[in-house]
């Protein structure tokens, strides 16, 4: 304990004892990616709180795909999403990504791109690499079209809880659930008819 006549000094944390950062006292977050229709690219939809990957999957399914259509979904721990820096204006983020030393790694990485600020990250393609940094560098040579991209994500595929082929039947009846779509209630029309009746 530091001793000083100045109370601010005695309040300083003791620096010589290395302690781990406090454990989370709440659920961590998992990122959710959705394929809205078969053949359309996956896109980032948001995140859910969960105690583990499988719980995140079951919670994400209704939180993000309870309306309209969906053909597949996956979740991954937020800490397994590696992000590049964010650029602006005419700056293509791929131009800032440095070539990384090859590790001869053969893990699959899913690469996501942000092509409009304020929009979602959308799937760009898959690459093989040993590290997220190498995956981004490989994406730079293989997937960069020169079009301006503001941000890149790299996610190792084996960290992802995917939807299996058989599981895709979860969403078969989803397009019929129109009662979850607010516009289906035509509230404006009902209000108009009601007001006409009241005012006439």
């Amino acid at each position, binding site marked *: 304990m530091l001793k000083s006549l100045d109370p601010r000094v005695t309040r300083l944390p003791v620096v010589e004892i290395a302690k781990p950062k406090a454990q989370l006292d709440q659920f961590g977050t998992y990122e959710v990616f959705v394929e809205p229709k078969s053949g359309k690219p996956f896109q980032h939809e948001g995140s859910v709180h969960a105690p583990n990957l499988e719980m995140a999957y079951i*919670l994400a399914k*209704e*939180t993000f795909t309870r309306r309209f259509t969906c053909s597949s979904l996956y979740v991954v721990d937020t800490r397994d999403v590696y992000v590049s820096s964010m650029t602006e204006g005419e700056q293509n983020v791929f131009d800032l990504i440095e070539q990384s030393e090859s590790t001869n790694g053969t893990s699959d990485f899913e690469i996501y791109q942000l092509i409009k600020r304020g929009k979602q990250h959308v799937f760009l393609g898959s690459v093989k690499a040993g590290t997220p940094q190498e995956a981004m560098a490989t994406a730079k040579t293989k997937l960069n079209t020169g079009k301006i991209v503001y941000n890149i994500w790299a996610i190792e595929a084996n960290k992802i809880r995917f939807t299996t082929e058989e599981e895709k039947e979860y969403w078969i009846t989803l397009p019929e659930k129109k009662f979850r779509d607010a516009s289906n209630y035509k509230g404006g029309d009902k209000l108009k008819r009601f007001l006409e009746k009241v005012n006439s």
Partner: protein
Amino acid sequence: MNNQALKELLYKMADDQLILGHRNSEWTGMGPLLEEDIAFSSMAQDKIGQSLALYTLLQELGERDPDTVAFTRSANQFHNCQLVELPNQEYDFSLIRHFLFDTAEALRFEMLSESSYEPLAQLARKIRGELRYHTLHANTWIKQLGTATPESIERLQKSLEYAMPFALGIFEPSPYENELISSNIFLGEENLKKRWMEKVESVISQTNLNLPDWNLVKPELGGRLGTHTAHLQPLLDEMSEVFKIDPTAEW
């Protein structure tokens, strides 16, 4: 085709889903996590949608329209098992009920996808994906909380023991068991119960929970014949409140 037997089967299935759908929807806005609140509410909606599909089949067999059937009968005219009408308690009970009931429901529809009554077989195939998610959801929660902390394990264990006699009431034999089996409409409650016990055992064995000895559990029967606990009528009164004020109300 034996219509009486078929109608009895459809009524008890539809009533189970309507009543449990209503009970589970009581958690809307009060779920333990935002994401779980949404998931549980969605599945409650699915159950009511499935009951509507079954009541529609009944209408095609000459019964009254689904709204009238759902909203104008009194408790002793309902064929649901008593498990589904029990009031919500803590969330552990709702999860255990969801697990025990939906496991049976998914297996029942799996059997019915081969039914000789084609409209029911078609419905069973159509909603297979919905039921698959419901059981994944239930199994994942039971495995999670059944292995998490001493408190979560103890809570689930208590709820499991409380719910088990009522869960066995799901399989109360119909007066028409033999007709349903011989006409290949449905393989029967005894067959379903066997499959259900295996499935329940396989999930519970992955947790720190203990199943009671099946032979020592006395099933709570009577629901299929219209005998219910005191909890069903208040549920029906609440559910049909708007319909009784204005049967043509739309929203």
